[in-house]
């Protein structure tokens, strides 16, 4: 008689004893890992144009170039209010730029992060928490590059700027833009800037800013740092920083309060007398303004009325 072989019962995978706590831990771990994966992916995209599109940040401009840029930046960030007024103190006769030094405790971590900043600017930024936060959180880096000044006047090479994120700066003229890109950037940059420059030659002072802006816009569409950072635009001196800081304050408020509505901008010159009233004041007395203004200009009601006063 042949004995039938015996088989051990088929092993089933052991089920863990049910525990709500274990399940909760699994889900917590899952959400943590997922958040980490998301953060990693966003960090990868952070310094690219995609990153800025995702952040919803307004295109930030900028390139500090030219003779007055350094002082403009300094003035902007040291203004008592963050909606900075930019006062440029540039003595064109002497070709000097006035700068102020501040005694602020150094933040080594911050200075290591932005090694290309001068101590003046670094200290200034640290002194202004909002600007520091702006620089750190939005991924703006400050391209502090007063390349037109002589080294003795504090000129700096732009070393390191290319390796960092979107640059915050100011354009102050086509010449500065030229110099910056000719000296410090790749052939791709130089080509782009030359093409832009070729379209608008020898501008007068009033046109220089527009030209620089045009160059910046040209750069927008043509130039991109190969290793991530992108310049997204160029703003005018003063307006750039003012708008930037102002916008950031509103961005912060809207993040905290979803119902926050940015108020309409106040009138730029609230103290200025209303124009029509001014005219009426001058013309209503029947003096020389009245005659000069209305004689020969037809018979408006105002003329008829005033003419018989």
């Amino acid at each position, binding site marked *: 008689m042949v004995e039938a072989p015996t088989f051990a019962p088929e092993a089933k995978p052991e089920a863990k004893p049910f525990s709500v706590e274990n*399940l909760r831990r699994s889900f917590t771990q899952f959400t943590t890992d997922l958040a980490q994966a998301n953060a990693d992916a966003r960090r990868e995209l952070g310094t690219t144009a995609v990153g800025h599109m*995702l952040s919803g940040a307004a295109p930030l401009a900028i390139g500090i170039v030219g003779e007055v840029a350094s002082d403009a930046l300094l003035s902007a960030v040291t203004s008592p209010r963050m909606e900075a007024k930019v006062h440029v103190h540039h003595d064109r006769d002497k070709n000097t730029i006035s700068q102020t030094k501040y005694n602020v405790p150094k933040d080594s971590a911050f200075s290591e992060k932005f090694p290309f900043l001068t101590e003046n600017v670094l200290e200034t930024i640290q002194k202004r928490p909002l600007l520091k936060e702006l620089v750190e959180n939005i991924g703006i880096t400050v391209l502090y590059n007063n390349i037109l000044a002589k080294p003795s006047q504090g000129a700096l090479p732009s070393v390191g700027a290319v390796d960092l994120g979107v640059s915050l700066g100011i354009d102050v003229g086509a010449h500065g833009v030229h110099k910056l890109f000719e000296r410090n950037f790749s052939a791709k940059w130089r080509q782009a800037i030359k093409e832009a420059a070729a379209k608008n030659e020898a501008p007068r002072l009033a046109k220089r800013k527009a030209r620089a802006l045009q160059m910046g816009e040209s750069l927008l569409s043509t130039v991109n740092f190969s290793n991530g950072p992108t310049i997204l635009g160029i703003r005018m001196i003063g307006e750039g920083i003012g708008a930037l800081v102002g916008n950031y304050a509103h961005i912060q408020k809207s993040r905290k309060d979803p119902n926050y509505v940015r108020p309409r901008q106040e009138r730029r010159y609230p103290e200025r007398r209303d124009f029509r009233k001014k005219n009426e004041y001058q013309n209503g007395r029947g003096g020389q303004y009245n005659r000069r203004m209305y004689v020969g200009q037809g018979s408006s009601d105002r003329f008829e009325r005033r003419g018989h006063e």
Partner: protein
Amino acid sequence: MSNKAVKEKIQSTRLFSDAEKIALLVRWDELLEEEIQKLEKVIDVYDQRYSQLVAGLKHEVEESLGSLGPNDSQELEDAQTLIRAGLGTLSS
């Protein structure tokens, strides 16, 4: 890979919110080829990681739920239903 395929990846990925997807697609023309390639790579990596995480979670939860039998209390069955529904949402 064509731009169309990358756009489809953007639309299907869980990396971005709907608003972000719209922002990306609206300003698509501003992106350079290399940026698009990088974006695609990041999306691929993220989606792969997402699938792995979901699979891991599913395995752990199924393992845990496997010990529950028909004689368990009503509360445990409710929990089972709830968690399975949650898993379905996560993995859909």
